[in-house]
């Protein structure tokens, strides 16, 4: 719309232009003030009024940011906030949309913390892949903490109890104040340079945010990351998480816990060795038993039994043949015996002496030739006549041949 040379705007157009200008020129502000009024809504958004001596500023923390706040905003709290200006058009009211809120004094610290955290995270200092394994059975543990105080005492006490075979190398440092970060990072570097250690514990007892701040120092964080020796941190209480904790290979909630993580309990280890020893023996015995069973089952296999069966079969056959041979042998002998017997009978009948007993005589010449015919002898030749009971010596008188 254009009237008498003036361009006429609608309310919404004005609002949009102002909104645009605000968002463009007043983004990412850091503002300090006191919370005059603060009300959380069921939606999760928190509405606040910030003020200083002269002015007030409406502000809102939208629920995603409200959930992540480390400090709850309350009326009267002096805060440093980070956010963007914008316009709430329905009311024509400009307001600050807060992303982060810190109690004043800490605001700057947290600003630096967040920035550094983001940077280091991008560089991969917190990544799980770069975490080193904590050795379970160290020979020696390096301890970087205050030379006096409960932290060192707690760690040594736990190690004495759990793992008296582990020795400790201590590097005393300041754990708070302006020199702390330099000393701690130098200690980590020196321990690495010196070596001869399996694990490092970097520890500090609980303290205020400022006390613990040296563990958010970039130098310390980078020294932990660069350490070749695995690092366990035990800094402050469980709720305080420093950038050193993010970077460490293991973050222990307390110094005692750090010592417990650093070394396995000696008694438990001995028990474990005992159980392994037992398993070793059982397993060996089992293997021997299995082999014995295998041998036994092989012995019962057909292959082993077959030869024995064959032997038995052959044995039976041999026995059988032996019997048959003896049988036939006997029958042959018997028949021969019978022949011999009958022959003997015949021979007995033919025995000359038998004939002599019956009164027959045998005549022989001087050369003992049996005389069968008269022409074998001459007249007056000496002849012997054998009779049953003796010999008669006589001379031939006459010979007469039988007429056949």
């Amino acid at each position: 719309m254009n009237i008498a040379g003036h361009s006429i705007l609608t309310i919404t157009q004005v609002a949009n232009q102002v909104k645009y200008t605000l968002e463009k020129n007043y983004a990412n502000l850091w503002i300090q003030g006191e919370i005059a009024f603060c009300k959380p809504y069921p939606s999760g958004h928190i509405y606040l009024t910030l003020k200083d001596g002269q002015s007030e500023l409406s502000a809102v923390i939208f629920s995603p940011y409200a959930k992540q706040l480390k400090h709850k905003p309350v009326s009267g709290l002096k805060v440093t906030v980070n956010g963007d200006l914008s316009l709430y058009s329905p009311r024509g009211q400009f307001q600050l949309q807060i992303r982060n809120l810190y109690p004043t004094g800490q605001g700057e610290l947290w600003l630096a913390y967040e920035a550094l955290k983001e940077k280091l995270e991008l560089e991969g200092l917190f990544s799980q892949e770069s975490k080193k394994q904590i050795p379970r059975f160290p020979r020696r543990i390096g301890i970087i903490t205050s030379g006096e105080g409960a932290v060192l005492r707690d760690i040594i006490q736990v190690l004495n109890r759990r793992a008296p075979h582990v020795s400790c190398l201590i590097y005393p440092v300041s754990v708070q104040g302006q020199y702390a970060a330099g000393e701690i990072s130098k200690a980590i570097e020196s321990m690495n340079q010196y070596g001869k250690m399996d694990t490092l514990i970097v520890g500090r007892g609980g303290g205020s945010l400022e006390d613990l701040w040296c563990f958010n120092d970039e130098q310390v964080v980078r020294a932990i990351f660069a350490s070749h020796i695995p690092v366990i941190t035990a800094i402050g209480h469980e709720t305080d998480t420093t950038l050193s904790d993010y970077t460490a290979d293991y973050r222990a909630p307390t110094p005692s816990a750090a010592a417990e993580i650093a070394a396995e309990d000696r008694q438990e280890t001995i028990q474990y060795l005992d159980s392994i020893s037992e398993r070793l023996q059982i397993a060996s015995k089992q293997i021997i038993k299995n082999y014995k069973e295998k041998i036994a089952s092989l012995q019962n296999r057909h292959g082993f039994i077959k030869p024995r069966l064959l032997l038995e079969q052959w044995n039976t056959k041999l026995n059988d043949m032996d019997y048959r041979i003896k049988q036939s042998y006997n029958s042959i002998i018997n028949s021969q015996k019978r022949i011999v017997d009958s022959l003997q009978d015949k021979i007995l009948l033919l025995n000359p002496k038998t004939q002599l007993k019956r009164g027959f005589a045998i005549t022989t010449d001087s050369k003992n030739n049996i005389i069968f015919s008269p022409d074998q002898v001459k007249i007056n030749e000496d002849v012997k006549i054998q009779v049953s009971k003796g010999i008669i010596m006589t001379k031939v008188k006459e010979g007469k041949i039988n007429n056949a």
Partner: protein
Amino acid sequence: MPKKQNFEDTLSELQSIVQKLESDSLSLDKMVHCFEDGMKLMKICRTQLDEVENRITTLVKDNDEFSEKSGIKQS
């Protein structure tokens, strides 16, 4: 620790021997070897645990030279 065999390595070697034995596919010869090796490693482990060192020393650096002083000393 330098030179001395690392307890952890010894222990994991021991564990793998036990697993090998328990896997039940070993020849008798190998079994005997494994068993002997296992008992040897077991002895090494126990000896290392028995060596109660518990030395507490403090690292001191003078002119870039490291040295260890016994006990807890303030730098």
